[in-house]
């Protein structure tokens, strides 16, 4: 899977979990930029991503994610 494919999947997960019709994710997108991405939705997002890609994040990874770019890097590294 390459970055673009991961982005496509992530966009779907975000749309479904946050009840959004349109969303544009980029490397520098943070929780502040996305409507509805609060700490509540975050729990569900992480769980959905783990389910979709079939791995578990470690605690330090969850704590240290700063933007979508880092999230994609991490997913690439985990499934690679």
């Amino acid at each position, binding site marked *: 899977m390459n970055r673009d494919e991961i982005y496509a999947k992530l966009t779907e997960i975000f749309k479904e*979990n946050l009840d959004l019709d349109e969303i544009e994710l980029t490397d520098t997108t943070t929780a502040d930029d996305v409507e509805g991405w*609060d*700490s*509540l*939705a975050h*729990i*569900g997002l*992480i*769980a959905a991503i783990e389910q979709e890609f079939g791995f*578990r994040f*470690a*605690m*330090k990874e*969850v*704590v240290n994610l700063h933007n979508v770019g880092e999230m994609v890097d991490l997913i690439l590294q985990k499934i690679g």
Partner: protein
Amino acid sequence: MLFSSTVFLFLFLPIVCALYLLVRKELKDYVLLLASIFFYAWGEPRYVAVMLLTIIINYVGALWVANLNSKKKAWGFTLLLGEHTKLNCSCSAAKLALFLTILGDLIFLFYFKYFNFFVENINELFGGHIDFIKVIMPIGISFYTFQAISYVVDVYREEVEPQKNIYKLALYITLFPQLVAGPIVKYHDVADQIEHRTVDFEKVAYGVKRFIVGLAKKVLLANTLGAVADKVFTQPIDQLDCMTTWLGAICYTFQIYYDFSGYSDMAIGLGSIFGFKFLENFTYPYISKSISEYWRRWHISMGSWFRDYLFLPLQRALSLSKTYSKLSHRLGRRKINILLTAIALLVTWFLIGFWHGAGWSFVVYGLYNGFFIFLEIITGWNRDRKSFAGRAMQHLYTLFVVVLGFVIFRSDTMDYAWHYLLTMFGAERGEPIYHLIYYVDRIEIIALIVGAICSAPLCSKMLEVEGRSQLRIAAVNLWLLALFILSAASIAASTYNPFIYFRF
């Protein structure tokens, strides 16, 4: 030894600074370590051993955790509960080692800080007669214990290498600028600085200036307003009326901010003199638009400690449980996330309250804050408002909740807090024997106005030197010199000025 005492300012600090700057690079850490232990022993000679023991426990514990981490071993045992029922218990060996090390840290904290509180409550509940133990809480134990826990957890999470040199770990835990009342420095934030840091003129100059700002906050504002708050809060509740209670609550709100943020400025300044860069502990909390934001601006090092080492792991552990996925089908995603967050908030804020002190009013204070944060999360209150009126409402609501929260925090008993709050809202009225004039004079009113103005970020860039004209820098330096002289004069004139957070 208080930062705002003459012994510290005119003897200890100059001697330590001179020694630190003069000795060879390899010896600097040892000078600082010895100075820190001396600093601690000056105020707490009996309990130096407790702190040293904590260092040894965590030094050994972290090496053990790291060793098991690298082996990825699991420990387990099987309990035979009957002929056909077996209970398998297993967990990663590193996790168990981490758990035991943290337990070792918490036993000290429990014994010194909470034992008598539990005895008191057990006696009350069951009518028992267990004797109290005669202990005095070692200064700073709540702070250095949390630093120690941060270190082992960071090692467990493989964010940092375990420290092989016990003196360097001891330096991290005992470093006198932050030893007795924070900021709670996390190990991963300073791991590099402990190994390599440089001391240069700019850092020393910044540190001295930052220290003076903190000293002035503490001595000129916090002490002045604290005297008013003390007068009000030591009155019997039936001698207070509405106006006086508000005056007391507002003065205390500013006192605690200038007391604790002033202390943090001094700690950060001292750190800078010795080449450390600590993270900010306060960023203008009273301009917050929600309680959630407030706690990202107030005592940041503690809030983020609880977030990183308790709230997030707890929330995560709950979301990985089987019950979570079962319930999320039944209740729906949003509801289960609300439930899970509520549980994690409840535990976290209970413990944040309890961390502040072994008393029910602290627990109530913690839960009170957690309750508003929960409300904000589920209602989306802390979203940015566009209209002026909307933002004004957010500010007012936040200040209101903060001021009332400090009434609970300041009161010795819940009973006192309750009647104090009733008096504030006119539901009760005592018979005041003093007029408002008794509590405030000209100097206190000036302190209150200056305090209110300076709690907004109007001169937040005062200490910056880059790109500033020589004239401006000189003016700021003159101003700081004046503040220092004023503060020193005030210290010389007064006899008693403890920091609020030393109690915790």
